[in-house]
């Protein structure tokens, strides 16, 4: 049996199919993954993401520590509440994890890391932290609920404390507001508008129930995966891990090369990779034939093996199969994918596939 979030009893009550995920017992779906997916694209859905680890960082050298630790540069964060997506790299440039860091004010940050990597991340961070004057505090007293979809904000705001409601309603994308132990970020992992709400664990069940009564549909990890795949967002452990570079995972945009004199962990390795060239490209694929693309299927161009799919599946919004793949940079506009012993035709596209309820690619 895995660990349980403060919302586990709610999932059981709603008839969720529970599966093990990163050491946790989490809902896969509550009946239909497809309907949950559509609810988020068209209305609103909510996900229990309390398994993700929230870490608060404070201290006079908190910024200096994060500028050393992360490939993206927290010096970009100047307004309290602003969030930044970044990779945390090993010395050799492999990706230890991807995370979100929120700037809360001078010397104060909040970091959210993946569940499956949380212990490893924390050990790595603490080792690196020894040279800096700052404290890292895991917040296992908090739960987290992601409310996503075009109606998500309107459904969530009336349920917030008046002190937080106004600030949350005024948030721009990728900003957060807080009041007491409640923290609301206009962030997410679906390609839709919405909030991620961190709150005291003991208040989470009532808030979840209130959202449900307001018409927000409970959604499981299954829909979370198809939504993020359509949105072209990477999943750690599948699209990238310790053995690959962010430069081969479509994450170049998250590496802050400027200023040149910021020696973050992994920088030297990434610079050497960039100089050596021959890096693989991270692309999207749209299947033209009938079938379903899955991770680890091989990508070909003629006789030449070009790489493999890292995440694949059926896109409920497009009603077609889509994938993310790491391939030889010389790949053309179309390719073939080996699906269950057959070569099927696919078109190479630039993710995302779907954002804000709309297709971002041509299906012809």
């Amino acid at each position, binding site marked *: 049996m895995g660990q349980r979030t403060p919302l586990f009893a709610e999932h059981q009550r709603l008839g969720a199919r529970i599966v093990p995920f990163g050491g946790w017992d989490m809902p896969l779906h509550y009946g239909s*993954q497809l309907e949950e997916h559509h609810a988020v694209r068209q209305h609103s859905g909510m996900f229990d993401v309390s398994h993700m680890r929230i870490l608060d960082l404070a201290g006079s050298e908190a910024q200096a520590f994060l500028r050393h630790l992360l490939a993206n540069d927290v010096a970009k964060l100047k307004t309290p509440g602003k969030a930044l997506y970044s990779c945390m790299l090993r010395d050799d440039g492999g990706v230890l994890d991807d995370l979100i860091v929120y700037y809360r004010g001078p010397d104060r940050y909040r970091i959210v890391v993946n569940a499956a990597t949380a212990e490893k991340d924390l050990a790595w961070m603490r080792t690196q932290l020894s040279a800096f004057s700052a404290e890292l505090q895991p917040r296992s007293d908090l739960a987290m609920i992601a409310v996503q979809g075009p109606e998500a904000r309107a459904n969530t705001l009336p349920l917030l404390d008046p002190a937080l409601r106004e600030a949350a309603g005024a948030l721009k994308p990728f900003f957060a507001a807080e009041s007491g132990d409640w923290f609301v970020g206009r962030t997410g992992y679906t390609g839709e508008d919405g909030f991620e709400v961190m709150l005291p664990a003991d208040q989470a069940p009532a808030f979840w129930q209130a959202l449900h009564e307001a018409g927000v549909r409970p959604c499981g990890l299954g829909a979370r995966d198809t939504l993020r795949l359509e949105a072209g967002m990477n999943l750690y452990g599948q699209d990238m891990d310790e053995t690959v570079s962010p430069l081969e995972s479509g994450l170049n945009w998250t590496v802050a090369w400027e200023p040149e004199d910021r020696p973050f962990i992994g920088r030297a390795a990434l610079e050497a990779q960039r100089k050596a060239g021959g890096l693989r490209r991270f692309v999207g694929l749209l299947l033209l034939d009938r079938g379903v693309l899955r991770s680890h299927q091989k990508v070909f161009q003629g006789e030449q093996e070009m790489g493999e799919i890292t995440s694949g599946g059926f896109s409920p919004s497009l009603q077609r199969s889509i994938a993310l793949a790491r391939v030889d940079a010389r790949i053309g506009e179309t390719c073939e994918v080996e699906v269950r012993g057959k070569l099927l035709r696919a078109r190479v596209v630039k993710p995302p596939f779907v954002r804000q309820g709309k297709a971002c690619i041509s299906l012809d």
Partner: protein
Amino acid sequence: MSTVPNELRYTQDHEWVRDNGDGTVTVGITDHAQEALGDLVFVEIPEVGRSLAAGDACAVVESVKAASDVYSPLAGEVVEANEALSEAPERINEDPYGEGWIFRLALKDPADLDQLLNAEAYEQLLAEEEA
């Protein structure tokens, strides 16, 4: 709890077999199988006219989660396949024992039917897998 109709026969691979009484059987996947797979998004039906040995992989059902082979429960020839599944794979989720049928097989030897599990034996198999 998944349904296991009494009048059908079953396989270890969670398929059901209906004896049509004319030397043919209709084949599909059980309620338990569709529930375990989750929402189906793609079905590859077998070719009509294809001769199959018992245990031959002859169709594919793919859900949001994974792909799964469908095996021929007995030896025979495919005489009909459910074309409607190509456009509406969700029929298997909605009605696994009815509209969600996958193919019809003309048996090589109708006596082979006795090799399959009856409802009671299949329910026992499900109970053992649960444990």
